[in-house]
């Protein structure tokens, strides 16, 4: 497979002038479009100095927003993970009618705008919704409170874990599990000792992406939370509130926490991809594809 070693004709687009200009243009755009927003967050967060940054983070409303965001994630992510594993187990290890439809429905929230999701939840639990009057007479508060925030987050992230597991478990087949059960292992034992070790990286990958989305969700949560400062404001909503209060430095200080979370997510993602997660759709033969691409000499 060594086509492009020295002395061989170059591939399409390897002309030095073309390569350097394309590389230059693309890197400039990456710098402007992707790196600059990150840099501006850091610069603006510290624009009024380190002390102001620390005060912004320590502000009771900001601390409450952080706490609320963490609590919402602590509830939504584990439930979503259990659902994702159950869905992947049912879909990949069993045959039943309507499997395709079920897969489509699980993927649905991925295509629905978060605003539509928020509005839809209003018509279930809101006063003008299906259960609103009943809930009010029982004095159960779902909207404009933590349960609403958790439910809306669960809607937008419903496909996250399942989507990582289903292709992988499909590719792995059922042979190992069938062998385990035929040797007398129980269903749970089969899952924990046979299936789980094979899917652990993909599972973790899905959980990390799900957590990042739950903590950062804005549109759906802004509809159902009611935006009550110090009560139902999650961190993204608090960022909006500070921004519209003309407290840019405070807003960016809060935003820098979520930006750090995004960077941690990316680092973990790269680390997990090295373990093979997130790349199931690529044929295994591609693993060594890098070696046939020529080195660019700067």
């Amino acid at each position, binding site marked *: 497979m060594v*086509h492009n070693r020295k002395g061989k004709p170059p591939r399409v687009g390897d002309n030095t002038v073309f390569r350097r200009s394309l590389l230059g243009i693309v890197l400039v755009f990456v710098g402007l479009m992707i790196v600059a927003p990150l840099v501006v967050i850091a610069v603006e967060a510290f624009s009024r100095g380190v002390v102001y940054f620390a005060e912004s983070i320590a502000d009771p409303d900001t601390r409450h927003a952080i706490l609320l965001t963490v609590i919402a994630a602590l509830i939504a992510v584990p439930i979503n993970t259990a659902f994702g594993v159950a869905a992947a187990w049912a879909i990949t290890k069993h045959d039943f009618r309507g499997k395709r439809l079920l897969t489509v429905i699980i993927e649905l929230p991925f*295509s629905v705008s978060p*605003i539509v999701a928020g509005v839809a939840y209003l018509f279930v639990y809101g006063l003008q919704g299906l259960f609103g009057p009943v809930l009010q007479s029982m004095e159960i508060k779902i909207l404009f409170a933590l349960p609403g925030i958790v439910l809306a987050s669960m809607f937008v992230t419903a496909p996250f874990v399942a989507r990582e597991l289903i292709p992988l478990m499909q590719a792995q087949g059922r042979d190992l599990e069938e062998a385990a059960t035929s040797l007398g292992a129980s269903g749970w034992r089969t899952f924990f000792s046979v299936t789980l070790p094979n899917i652990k990286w993909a599972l973790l990958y899905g959980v990390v992406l799900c957590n990042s989305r739950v903590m*950062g969700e804005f549109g759906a949560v802004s509809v159902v939370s009611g935006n009550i400062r110090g009560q139902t404001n999650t961190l993204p909503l608090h960022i909006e509130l500070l921004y519209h209060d003309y407290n840019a430095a405070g807003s960016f200080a809060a935003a820098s926490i979520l930006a750090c979370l995004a960077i941690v997510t990316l680092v973990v993602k790269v680390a997990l991809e090295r373990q093979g997660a997130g790349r199931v759709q690529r044929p295994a033969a591609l693993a060594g594809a890098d070696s046939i691409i020529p080195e660019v000499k700067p």
Partner: protein
Amino acid sequence: MRRRVLPGLPLALGITLVYVAIIVVLPLAALVFKAASLGPADYWRIISSDRAFASYRVTVLCALAATVFNLVFGMALAWVLVRYRFPGRRLVDALVDLPFALPTAVAGIALTTLFATNGWFGAPLSLLGIKVAYTPLGIIVAMSFTSIPFIVRTVQPVLEELDPALEEAGQTLGASDLSIFVGVILPLLTPALLAGVSLSFARSLGEFGAIIFIAGNQPFSTEITALLAFIRLEEYDYPASAAIASVMLLTAFVMLAITNLMQARALRYTVRG
């Protein structure tokens, strides 16, 4: 051929169906029910109002522009990542996912600050007479940012897998790089490009968080449909909100069908043997 049946179907399927019913199907059904309870005349009046129509126009046109930009830039980015070796390539590869990882509200305030008339990009651009923040251009910028990974990540694997022999055949026959690219490489990438384009376009249509900060949100000029549904809600005009949200939901279904079709086509070309 009878397979051994693995245990756990009732429990796993039970959890799945309960979750899907409560979390996904129930709210969407409630939305459709609410919109349907309006009656055809009222429904049509709301969704075809001038303000709603202007919002569809802005949303669709900006999403188209953002997708075209992403098509060119995303394709170039994927090409550079796959074909060229350069210092920091892995870093750039990882950064491509930043728009997915960065919460949309954070992206929104960052882009607005960059493109405001006193911002790093806004100041030089305003000297040239170009205003980005609080104009449709700002909406396009926000849409491009949030959906650029779709094109890169769908094209990248196909480009990695491209058989060098195909290009060599063209080179041996004396074809120029450009004609090999247009005649050989581009047709092979087209299914992946189309899949990426439909994902990117669908995401742009539904985007909210990143856009509302930079858009200016003026009715009839920079008000996107998602915002209009939100505003109707804040005005306690629930039927109007339901109707507009149902239009967005219907669009999402159509885009989902198109995307699935495109992805199935792309996959047919990607996975061989």
